[in-house]
């Protein structure tokens, strides 16, 4: 069993992370005292209502926001150093493909910036296109692809340079339910194939439960963690696992966590 081979090895460690934005209406406490450890090979979902700081936390891990307090490390480095070491691939809510580049050209973008050789670039493009099931679409332009295919291309772009960590900010939020189900299934397959550590922001409970080994429930004002749920589901998950009592129990606990966070506020 693959599961037993995983020895807990922390990749992302947060200790008492605070993040306060100074705005025109005064300070906004986006993150308060966030403590969390993400181990190698984990699939961690961050779930919560808007304003709970889930995206902010992901961006802080990526070094795109700087915490105002506490400690945060990625691969034992500061987030900014980890960013400079190109420790992660980031997938945004919108695919954000360049309309003037083909799909292959878009996937090459990080490779060109990071100075991979031309032959290596082509090989990598082929490999990741296969990984996201877009073989033969390299020469197409983004507008020739559906929204779901574009998002898959953007995942391929994040995978192309072989970072160990994949950070995904509501990557399927703009897609319809059916496409979303398929992409969730593919993402699990991809995760199993590549053995990456994944941080995944969502506000869909089924999505979080279906995908994750660890679910982090967050609540707003100030943004904080209210519950961390270790999933008991096996790593190998067919779509119909969502009808099992185990799945429903976890989903129930997530919902309770979200409700509890909501009550605090009133």
């Amino acid at each position, binding site marked *: 069993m693959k599961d037993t081979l995983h020895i807990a090895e922390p990749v992302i460690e947060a200790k008492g992370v605070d993040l306060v934005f100074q705005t025109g209406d005064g300070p906004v406490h986006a993150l308060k005292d966030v403590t969390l450890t993400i181990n190698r090979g984990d699939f961690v979902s961050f779930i919560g209502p808007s304003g709970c700081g889930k995206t902010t936390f992901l961006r802080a891990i990526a070094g795109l926001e700087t915490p105002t307090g506490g400690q945060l490390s990625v691969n034992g480095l500061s987030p900014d150093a980890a*960013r400079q070491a190109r420790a992660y691939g*980031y997938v*945004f809510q919108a695919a*954000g493909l360049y309309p*003037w580049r083909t799909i292959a050209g878009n996937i090459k973008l*990080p490779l060109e*910036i990071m100075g991979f050789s031309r032959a290596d670039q082509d090989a990598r493009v082929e490999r990741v296109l296969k990984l996201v099931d877009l073989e033969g679409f390299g020469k197409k332009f983004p507008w020739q692809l559906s929204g779901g295919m574009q998002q898959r291309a953007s995942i391929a772009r994040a995978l192309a340079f072989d970072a160990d960590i994949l950070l995904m900010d509501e990557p399927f939020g703009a897609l319809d339910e059916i496409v979303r189900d398929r992409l969730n299934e593919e993402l699990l397959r991809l995760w199993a194939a590549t053995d990456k550590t994944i941080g995944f922001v969502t506000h869909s409970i089924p999505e979080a439960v279906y995908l994750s080994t660890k679910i982090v429930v967050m609540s707003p004002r100030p943004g904080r963690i209210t519950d961390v749920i270790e999933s008991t589901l096996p790593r190998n998950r067919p779509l119909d696992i969502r009808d099992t009592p185990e799945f429903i129990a976890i989903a129930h606990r997530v919902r309770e966590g979200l409700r509890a966070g909501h009550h605090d506020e009133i």
Partner: protein
Amino acid sequence: MRSILPILTVLCAILVIWYGAAMKLNAAWTYDQAARAGTDPTFVDVINDTMAQERPVLPPPHQVAKGLWEGLTAQAITSKRSLVWHGWVTLSATLLGFAVGAGLGTALAIGIVHNRAMDLSVMPWAIASQTVPILAIAPMVIVVLASLGITGIVPKAIISAYLSFFPVLVGMVKGLRSPDGMQLDLLRTYNASTAATLWKLRLPSSMPYLFASLKVAIAASLVGTIVGELPAGATAGLGARLLSGSYYGQTVQIWSALFAAAGLAAALVVIVTLVERLVLRRMGVAR
């Protein structure tokens, strides 16, 4: 083809108004001449005369068309009477000025986008530069440069660049800033350098803005060159034709030069538009 009808309608209306105005404005001269000769011209005589005066107040369209045609074809194109030769003189300075202006505008825009000090300091001066009447600056540029021994195409090109850098500057600042936060964040996650961000994201994103401003800039370049030719001693160029025409009351010559300039401007804008279409199509942006 459906669009041809409105265009023809407008053209006909312009011709009718133009002919009417020419008859009215030129008739005074006809009556003066008749009074001096002691004759009493009929209405038809007056109309015929207003259509064929040598120095009409307003030359009717067919006279301008004839003047333009003769200017273009009646002599070798190297002759100083040829509009082709004068047009080339103007065009060469225009193209040089346009290239300098577009390059300068783009360079300043890149500076403004990347440097806060330039952002705060350059733009007000650029705007101020365009509030000064070009007619006031042109003679000074010509005179100052002539005293330094610089004559010919360069002073005109400088005036041309002075007018054409501005639209490119404004358009490119907007264009280079057009990528949204997510696009810039994506490049930050790759730890991309400022230069890589410029080449791979900002410049390609700014292409539609660039071409929109180039169309304005090339027309402004031509105006700048013509204005630069006015105080240059009126020897060569469409501006010189305009000026010498007005010295000697050669209204047909003025209008011919005017239309030659307008045709040149239109041709230049069309060329920029074609290049735009080609570039955007190759970029896969235009569908």
